[in-house]
């Protein structure tokens, strides 16, 4: 039982074993949360959405194709759910002052890394929702242009133009002399 495959756990979950699904959640929750965090850039909201992803996945576990890999699937589900969430909100959660630990107490090196990722998050959160999701799918989930087009149900030409434009914006934001 200590090293059940994802597949075994899905089979058990389908028979109503919530604990088996809980084990899957334990395996992928950080992954899924980070997908949501990279798209939403707000920790609490990202955790809520990640929870929602797993609840939905559990309710639809019977529709999951057992031959597919669970990890990539759940991360794509997460990206899509975040996109829907952002689009339903319509209010761009522009640059949340996300400062959860007070930086003065941290060592300088850690502070620098933290500040830089802060800047990256801020740059990304300035992008339109569908740009963020395309960045997520290409850079973090490593989908091809075609796979992204299928996943988001948009033309290949849009995938490319959105992705390239998103990178251009990020380059401008991140490499501008002092943001």
């Amino acid at each position, binding site marked *: 039982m200590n090293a059940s495959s994802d597949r075994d756990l899905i089979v058990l979950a389908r028979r109503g*074993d*919530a*604990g088996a*699904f*809980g*084990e899957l*959640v*334990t395996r992928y*929750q*950080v992954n*899924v*949360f*980070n997908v949501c*965090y*990279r798209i939403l850039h707000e*920790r609490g909201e990202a*955790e809520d959405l*990640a*929870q929602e992803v*797993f*609840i939905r996945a*559990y309710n639809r576990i019977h529709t999951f194709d057992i031959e597919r890999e669970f990890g990539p699937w759940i991360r794509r589900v997460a990206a899509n759910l975040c996109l829907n969430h952002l689009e339903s909100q319509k209010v761009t959660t522009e640059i949340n002052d996300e400062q959860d630990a007070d930086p003065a107490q941290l060592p300088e090196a850690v502070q620098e*890394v933290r500040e*830089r*990722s802060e800047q*990256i*998050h801020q740059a990304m959160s300035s992008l339109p929702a569908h740009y963020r999701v395309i*960045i997520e799918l*290409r*850079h*973090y989930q490593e989908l*091809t*242009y075609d796979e992204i087009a299928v996943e988001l149900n948009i033309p290949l030409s849009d995938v*490319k133009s959105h*992705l*390239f434009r998103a*990178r*251009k914006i*990020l*380059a401008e934001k*991140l*490499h501008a002399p002092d943001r």
Partner: protein
Amino acid sequence: MHLTDEQLNEYLDEATNERAQIEAHLSSCDECAARLSTLQNVFAELDSLPEVALTRNLAAPFTPRPSLPAQLPKFLTLTVTLQAAVALTAIIIAAPFIAQLIPVLELSSLSSVFIQLQTQWASWLDTLSQFQMPTLPTIPFELSSIYLMSAVVGVFMLWLVGNGLLLRNQIK
């Protein structure tokens, strides 16, 4: 002619079939090489983003109810035993009637045993059917007892098979 943004992006995404031409141009053009390196920086920045830790356990809503798994098998075995006993009784009751209903098969040795059993059961059933007789006086009692028993046996068998299938799925 400089490289387009599209060419540079596709080059870094490894989604181009003009790799050789692009590389040839990059090696001879500082301007495009600089544009490529700017783009590469974005890739590196995105890669550098660290994973963030959760502040709560998302698996919490999916914990198994602890009492249920221990109780369920016991309950199931009890049901199985009960059903087996009932089914056995049903078969014993049914056997003489089946033998009587299909004498064509001529299971001489077996049927003699069955007939012996049958007479015993028939006498018991006589009392049973006499008990029910007053309400249905017009129907010949021997026929009615056979039909009654066949119906009872049929229901028992259906019950056994149906529940057996259901339980087998759960145990598996």
